[in-house]
């Protein structure tokens, strides 16, 4: 993991870090729960064939300004600012987990901005027979094994980068969790389902078969609601943060959909 460029886009006056790597057709990536404290092997794979642009959503590592966003409307407007500010209108859009729900909203509300869509275990729908696990009501230390089949993957991903104090870093990671909560608390129905029919682009839905946060049964509901041509990739032995848990296999599915 090296060779990525960094710039900043202002959203509501707050700076959001934008990382970029690779050449080819542009792919816009919105990360999942926890955000992008560091570049990931999954993004490296995508960058072998695409120009990958990964902005930090407000409040996630590399960005602030979540405290100005009170409603879903505010969040969608912020992401539109990010997409346009990063010069990515018309790019392929990949969103995972928390980023996935926003990717779906953007594709539904501003279809012209999105060429093709990839949703990796996005939030937003609610099945009362399989409600999402409560990410914010977990015993200390149990979150990694809830999010990834290999807990160490998440722990390493979220570890303090070199030169950061553990104390200050814990504020950054808590802020990321808070930003996700600000958007999605209490993980109920965001009414995205009513807007799915507005997604008319080709859409790949990726789900970890061992997702303990959102049951893979949600994949079918997304596919049913989306008007565009959908395909599904269920990745075996993979948890909620699928692209972190199984970067090669998820990248393979995504690259094939974007080829």
């Amino acid at each position, binding site marked *: 993991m090296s060779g990525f460029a960094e710039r900043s886009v202002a959203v509501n006056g707050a700076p959001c870090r934008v990382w970029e790597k690779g050449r080819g057709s542009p792919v816009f990536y919105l990360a999942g729960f926890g955000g992008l404290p560091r570049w990931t092997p999954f993004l490296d794979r995508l960058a072998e064939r695409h120009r990958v642009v990964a902005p930090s959503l407000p409040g996630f590592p590399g960005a602030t300004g*979540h*405290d100005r966003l*009170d409603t879903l409307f505010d969040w969608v407007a912020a992401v539109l600012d990010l997409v346009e500010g990063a010069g990515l209108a018309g790019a392929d859009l990949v969103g995972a987990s928390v980023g996935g729900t926003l990717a779906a909203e953007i594709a539904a509300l501003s279809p012209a901005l999105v060429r093709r869509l990839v949703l990796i275990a996005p939030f937003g729908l609610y099945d009362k027979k399989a409600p999402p696990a409560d990410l*914010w*009501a*977990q*015993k*200390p230390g149990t979150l990694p094994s809830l999010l990834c089949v290999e807990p160490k993957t998440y722990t390493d991903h979220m570890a303090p980068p070199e030169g950061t104090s553990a*104390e200050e870093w*814990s*504020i950054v990671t*808590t*802020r990321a*969790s*808070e*930003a996700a*909560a*600000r958007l999605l*608390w*209490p993980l109920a129905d965001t009414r995205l389902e009513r807007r799915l029919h507005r997604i008319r682009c080709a859409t790949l839905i990726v789900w970890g078969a061992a997702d303990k946060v959102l049951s893979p049964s949600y994949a079918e509901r997304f596919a049913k609601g989306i008007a565009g041509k959908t395909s599904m990739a269920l990745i075996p032995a993979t948890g909620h943060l699928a692209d972190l848990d199984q970067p090669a296999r998820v990248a393979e599915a995504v690259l094939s959909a974007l080829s």
Partner: protein
Amino acid sequence: MKLLWFHLMPYTELPDDFRERHNSVWVDIDSGLLDPTVAHRLYNEFMDELEYAAALGFDAICVNEHHANGYGLMPSPNLIAAALARRTSDAAICVLGNSLALYNPPTRVAEEMAMIDCISGGRLIAGFPVGTPMDTCFAYGQNPSMLRARYIEAHDLVLEAWTRRETFAFNGRFNQLRYVNTWPHPVQKPRPPIWIPGGGSVETWQWCAAMDYVYCYLSYFGYKAGRETMMGFWREMERLGKDRNPYRAGFLQFVGVAQTREEAMKLYKEPAEYFYGRCLHVDSRYVNPPGYNSEATQRARITSQVALASQRAATMSGGATWDEILAKGFVIIGSPDEVAAQLREVATDLNVGHLMVLQQFGNMSRDLANHNTRLFAEQVMPQLRDLFKQEWEDRWWPKPLPKPARAVPQAPAREAAE
């Protein structure tokens, strides 16, 4: 100094193996453990105890708000306060308080508290806590990332509703009301005194100083644990150029009085162990939702006492032992003279002019609670009364209507009808 009698209203019938068999006393406490016929008895006994304390001369009786909580049966303290207002005549009614962000619209709080102030003839102390994570974010589903901003806005709205004498529009970030016109408004002008129970964040202290509110620390772990918080509060007041008027502060202490220390040891061991064992058995999943603590509070490494209790629960098989409860001063027990001497020292050391005593705790019966209360009122209170009295004025106490102007409730209707 002022002495206030505080009730948490704990459910007294949690089973002996509660810690082993149940997750948490809060949020997802097993609903099957509550028997409404027991609750019927408890509410009536608990209100008896509060009324008894008022009759014995305590300056105030205090109630507070908790939700889905096995040690606090008052989701609506205002209901209890209204009933107490009718059956007491001189004691202040201290509602400590209403978690403002939970009410939609928050003018509900302005209305209900104004009603209590009117019913009681101006005896209300209005407490405005943010509320614990268990109450607000989990039991009441509030978004932890927006809770404090909502709280501050709700406070501004209630204050305006109490003090403005015309119908006005409120165009807030979270609350938008075209017509605000609180009927009734409070007897006390410009408004009832406002007290803020808080966990010890610097921002809360600064806010209390700026608004001239009383800061209350409701310590479950006694004066030794609360000392650091209160010292921090006074250091901040000094930094802000505020005087050391002890009536700026309130502090809660569990107290058990008996004729002798030996007798007190016998009487209060079981209820104390019940409280520190069963009632503080809080699942760690619910104590720290992200955003509940500000980043400044995180940097100051302030940990809430419920989070501490929960950490303790995770590392200990049982609750606090009786020895620990006594050694660390969670509960102050002894003969009236011993208790008076200790409380005098606590109040002086912490510089607290509003001392709230919790004399019914855990599964204590009404008889024992009344015994505890009576000994305190008759033999401890007189030894504490003079403290701070000469040097400081309590600017944060209710100003009721003069006695002749106050309504006298009719004697119980049955008697009147006969």
